[in-house]
């Protein structure tokens, strides 16, 4: 880890912090300064409304509210829900929802990466054969079919026609009822990773050090696993970033379809009912995750392959 790398990490951290701050401020101002309040739908008289707003501190000047919010936020207190879950603590609501979403995301990424790599390697080793064609078709379809369409089709086939998998999320049996949504999410990961692994693998197989390794008389297994695969997999890390981001939007919709009580469902419901504190906490968490992911991927890429000078001319 040399000095320029540390400097780069520092710079990225600073930018991330600034971005998070900007997002938070804009979100806060937007929700507070706009006409309308979370209590619009409840038929309250002016006096009652004033009482309710005073209870939540919404009657104070926006700037004071903002400072209070920031102060509370640092201690992990994101306020209480106004509409959706009356007076419940937002932090625990979001935390519960996020647990499920993250578990889905991690499962889908892990499964998708393994299957995708396998598919990519098989395609590369059997170039221009029927296996290659099959792998290519799967990856083109996986990139092109929207995740929610795929989820719906899966639901229809396995949940309704064949009746082998539950269609709805079941709190009593979270593992079994999660198979369908995880597989649905997984497809885009498989497609992207397979496509990329294949390209990388083929370019590695054609390189001179592979010819040398072959000339040394190494057997095929060592050749593929020790020499080719290792070098081919490094660049795959770079595509994981965009894939994880895609997955975040994917979970939103798959959660909706399979009625999973995750982060996406919470966010959509809170947008529909103007529940400001939940909107803010969810968006903040999304932005935070996104930024952290980008950061980790950029840094790990720089560490793995020092030849790449990050931040210069892309």
């Amino acid at each position, binding site marked *: 880890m040399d000095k320029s790398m540390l400097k780069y990490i520092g710079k990225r951290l600073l*930018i*991330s912090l*600034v*971005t998070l701050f*900007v*997002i938070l401020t*804009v*979100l806060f101002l*937007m*929700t507070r300064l*706009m006409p309308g309040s979370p209590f619009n739908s409840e038929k309250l008289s002016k006096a009652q409304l004033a009482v309710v707003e005073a209870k939540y501190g919404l009657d104070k000047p926006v700037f004071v509210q903002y400072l209070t919010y920031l102060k509370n936020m640092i201690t992990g207190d994101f306020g209480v829900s106004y509409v959706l879950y009356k007076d419940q603590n937002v932090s625990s609501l979001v935390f519960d929802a996020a647990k499920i979403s993250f578990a889905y995301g991690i499962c889908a990424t892990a499964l998708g990466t393994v299957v995708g790599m396998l598919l990519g390697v098989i395609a590369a080793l059997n170039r221009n054969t029927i296996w290659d064609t099959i792998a290519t078709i799967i990856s*083109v*379809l996986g*990139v*092109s*079919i*929207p995740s*929610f*369409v795929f989820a*719906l*089709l899966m639901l*229809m086939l396995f949940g*309704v026609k064949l009746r082998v998998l539950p269609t709805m999320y079941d709190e009593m049996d979270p593992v079994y009822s999660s198979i369908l949504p995880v597989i649905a999410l997984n497809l885009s990961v498989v497609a992207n990773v397979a*496509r990329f692994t*294949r*390209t990388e693998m*083929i*370019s590695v197989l*054609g390189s001179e050090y592979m010819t040398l390794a072959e000339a040394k008389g190494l057997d095929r297994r060592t050749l593929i696993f020790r020499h080719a695969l290792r070098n081919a997999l490094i660049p795959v890390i770079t595509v994981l970033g965009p894939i994880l*981001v895609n997955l*975040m*939007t994917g979970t*939103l*919709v798959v959660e*909706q*379809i399979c009625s999973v009580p995750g982060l996406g469902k919470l*966010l*959509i419901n809170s*947008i*529909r009912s*103007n529940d*400001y504190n939940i*909107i803010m906490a*969810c*968006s903040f968490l*999304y*932005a935070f995750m*996104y*930024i952290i992911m*980008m950061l980790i991927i950029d840094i790990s890429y720089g560490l793995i392959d020092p030849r790449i000078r990050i931040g210069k*001319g*892309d």
Partner: protein
Amino acid sequence: MDELKDIKFEPDDFELIGDKQNIMIDEVEPARPLWKDVLGRFMENKGALIGIILIIIITLLAIFAPIFSKFTYDGVDTAATNIAPNATHWFGTDAFGRDLWARLWTGTRISLIIAIVAVIIDIVVGMTYGLISGYFGGLVDVILQRIQEIINSIPTLVVLTILLTVMKPSLTTVIIALIFTEWIPMSRITRAQVLKVKEDEFVLASRTLGASNFFIIFREILPNIFGQLIIMSMMTIPNAIFYEAYLAFVGLGLTVPRASLGTLINDGFENFLVYPYQMLIPSLVLAILMLSFNLFGDGLRDALDPTMKEM
């Protein structure tokens, strides 16, 4: 020397062949215009060809099908609800008796509008940003890149959430969210390409001849990187289409009674056990549309720049 004296030269010993033969033209490898090369490579790619044909068919249907249909996309007919596809209602009707053939192609229009909007955003915002940042360099570049990095680390979903706290869910809201984030990949590619080209000799030559910055950017640099930019903007189309359909699906996009592929899929989802055609047909059209744009984009990339082709 004596022998030479005996040779007589007549005026018609040599004939002038004129400039019928031009040594500058290589007859072994005749020059072909670039577009012919590109077109040739494109036509060889079956996938890309299928893609462009499907795009044309879908576009024509989206333009003309609603015009020539007896039904309108929002015409409610309570006497004819949930009819399976038949001769009158080619794709059946929904729970309100609205003709799905008309609704489907009106909805496809939205997706195509989004496709066009995505390209316009790419060119107007992304390309300009990248050109300025890459060409002028120095402080301008540093400032523009920092701004870009900050915007790039805001997920589109959060941008949309911010917008939705202020505006009602609608196509405009979605487009504004796209304007905010969609241009970033384009600007990065443009900047990288400009950086590559701007140190070349032909740019230096042009500058020595006294060309203005404007001239150099638009007449020297842009034509040389345009292929890359076209490829990039084609790649953003499927993403944008997906994004709109997806937002409509979760109920943050278009509002009733207007139709988009996403809302149609969502409506069909509500009773897809009983009337699967209501969900399957729009899903299929959406998938085909995205697939076609992907195939077309890939084909265009291979045709314009064979070196970029995946091995």
